[in-house]
């Protein structure tokens, strides 16, 4: 009997569908990212940031194109490429024309490919892909396409900035590379080898290790190996649980060398690493948090924390993406994806941080200043995970210096 009722639950829930009342005059942005499963923390954090940015930066200011409001519609992709495509279909079916996604380059690769095909097959119903976090360089190189815009700096750009910093540190003689065994991890490793080879041929790469993604339960053996190699610095692109594990294990072996990372902050990572990574962990990112760059930003950050005390502004580029989307609509005077895309190409923009950003037209890669920050609890205005620890910017690489040539051969619709 109980089972019968469980089936009824399903039926009831299906019936309770009219969840979100939808105003006719909104521009929907479909947010396709993991909202359940192991990576849900990152996904929901991004969602809150999107919602906040849309509310604060667009809707409260009267919307775009004479009063149209932005609306974020969340779609759970469970970080699976297949599920992302299902959700993409659904979003398109529900009239969404702008897709935002960021977690996992694997998903981004699937989405950009699917959106390209969709736009080709359905010229009357095109959609635009706002990639706010997936940094596989291929997305703006070999696999670039007109409908994809990347607001984060790609792995190569970040590595270029990072190696500029390492270049200046003459005490670093041996570097250990460790990363997750997939496209992004490999891209990081390849970029590190390339740029270190160019900038500091004297540095020896004492380890270039790829470990399976999301499957390592204990990083101690890796930490032991790093320790035994005598490395003076570690570079890793690890994120999520893999970053937590690696950070912890390195801390425990008593290894006292700088660790250069892409994603070792927020979503529980800062809190878990805590004191063991102080002044050791460095992060390459856009959008500085400490010290606060402008008052506008400080207010924005405080307002966000007021509303989401458990969350952080971990991806500042989200605010950029929202503001630039709105600006592009105003500039082109249209909310049609193709017009927005044309307006976005080559667009210059000043962020809340007061930084000058350019959406490069040739490959749709955002060119922006890149910061290298240290994990510490000193002089931190805005901490992460409410842990007292946060990121303090040490070095900034100017936007122009980060730009790298692209191999993209963009085919534009007529």
């Amino acid at each position, binding site marked *: 009997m109980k089972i019968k009722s469980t089936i009824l639950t399903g039926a009831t829930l299906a019936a309770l569908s009219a969840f979100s009342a939808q105003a006719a005059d909104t521009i929907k942005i479909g947010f396709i990212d993991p909202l*359940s*499963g*192991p990576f*849900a*923390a990152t996904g*929901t954090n991004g969602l809150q940031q999107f919602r906040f940015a849309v509310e604060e930066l667009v809707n409260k200011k009267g919307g775009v194109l004479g009063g149209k409001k932005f609306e974020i519609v969340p779609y759970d992709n469970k970080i699976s490429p297949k599920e992302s495509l299902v959700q993409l279909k659904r979003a398109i079916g529900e009239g969404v024309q702008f897709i935002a996604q960021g977690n996992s380059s694997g998903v981004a690769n699937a989405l950009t490919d699917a959106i390209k095909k969709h736009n080709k097959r359905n010229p009357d119903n095109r959609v635009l892909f706002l990639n706010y976090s997936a940094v596989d360089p291929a997305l703006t190189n070999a696999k670039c396409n007109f409908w994809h815009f990347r607001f984060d700096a790609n792995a190569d750009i970040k590595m270029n900035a990072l190696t500029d910093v390492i270049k200046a540190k003459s005490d670093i003689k041996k570097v250990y590379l460790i990363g997750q*065994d997939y496209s992004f991890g490999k891209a990081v490793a390849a970029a590190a080898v390339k740029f270190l080879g160019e900038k500091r041929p004297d540095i020896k790469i004492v380890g270039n*290790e*790829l*470990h*399976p993604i*999301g*499957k*390592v*339960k*204990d990083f*101690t*053996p*890796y930490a*032991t*190996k790093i*320790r*035994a190699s005598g490395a003076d610095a570690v570079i890793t692109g690890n994120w999520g*649980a893999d970053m*937590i*594990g690696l950070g*912890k294990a390195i801390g*425990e*072996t*008593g*290894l006292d060398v700088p660790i250069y990372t892409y994603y070792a902050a927020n*979503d*529980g*990572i800062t*809190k*878990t690493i805590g004191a063991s990574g102080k002044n050791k962990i460095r992060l390459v990112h856009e959008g500085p948090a400490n010290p606060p760059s402008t008052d506008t930003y400080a207010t924005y950050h405080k307002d966000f924390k007021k509303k989401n005390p458990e969350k952080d502004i971990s991806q500042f580029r989200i605010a950029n993406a929202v503001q630039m989307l709105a600006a592009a609509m105003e500039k082109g005077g249209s909310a049609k994806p193709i017009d927005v895309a044309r307006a976005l190409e080559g667009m210059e923009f000043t962020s809340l941080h007061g930084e000058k950003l350019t959406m490069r037209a040739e490959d749709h890669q955002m060119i922006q200043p890149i910061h290298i920050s240290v994990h510490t609890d000193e002089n931190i205005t805005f901490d992460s995970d409410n842990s007292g620890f946060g990121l303090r910017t040490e070095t900034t690489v100017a936007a122009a210096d980060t730009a790298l040539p692209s191999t993209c051969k963009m085919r534009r619709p007529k």
Partner: protein
Amino acid sequence: MFELLFFSLLNGIVTGLLLFMLASGLTLIFSMMGVLNFAHASFYMLGAYFAYTISLYVGFWPGLIIAPILVGLFGALVERYGLRYVHRWGHVAELIFTFGLAFLIEEVVQFIWGKDTKAYHEPEILQFALFTVFGQDFPAYKAFMLLISIGIFIMLLMILTRSRVGLIIQAAITKPNMTAMLGHNVPLVFMGVFGVGSALAGLAGVIAGPALGTFPGMAVVLGSIVFVIVVVGGLGSLGGAFVASLIIGLLQTFAIALDYSVSDLLAVFSITTEADSALRDLWTLSLPQVAPILPYLLLVLILIFRPTGLFGKRET
């Protein structure tokens, strides 16, 4: 090199003994009831989460005792009201039940504790380096894990060989049908063993939570490895489970530590390979890369060539 080997050996033993805490309970349950409990690693996860919550209020040490007891009670309830009920539908249903339970527990944990990693830390008193060799620290907490695991192993050994209950359990392991004839309350013994097995898994979770992270995926990461140990060690053999745990623990750490690849092997026979051949991935395959699949390779090979496991007395 010696530094690497020394620490790999230590780490391997720590991992191996932790695995044994999980595997010992599972072996007992599997041997007696014939149920390969998919939810066993979920009990391990529950242990970590219970202890985390307890540690928020009264600190780490009470959690070390209370959490395993809670998990044990929960396990006993699962046996009494879940497994025993499902038993009537047969073996496959039991297996599927534990499979579904593992899925459900993960969802419930996410519902109650959320999806992110919990800041469950080792107690302050154990946050120091116990000794430093070759400039590398060995954390005191690891030593603590080692001690607990060894303690549990000795305790189990004593109970199973010296006490009356132990003898009944041993009889039940080797000849499941005989025990009932000896006039023992088999359902009660089953419930007890299931509870104790779960409690052991819970204890493993309590001590592993701070070291390996407390997050909803922690059961999945470890779950199938424990199966491998039980099958490789052999049905009805605690000693087998012990040896298999150590083998798997050492296998995994040493595979990561030693950077040999297929191309090194080929170089020995002076065979050269094309960099762009279709099999290039095979030629560049390295030991650390395949480390996580070695246990499964072992599992399949054992099942094909020695279905009794290394020390098993009867077939799985």
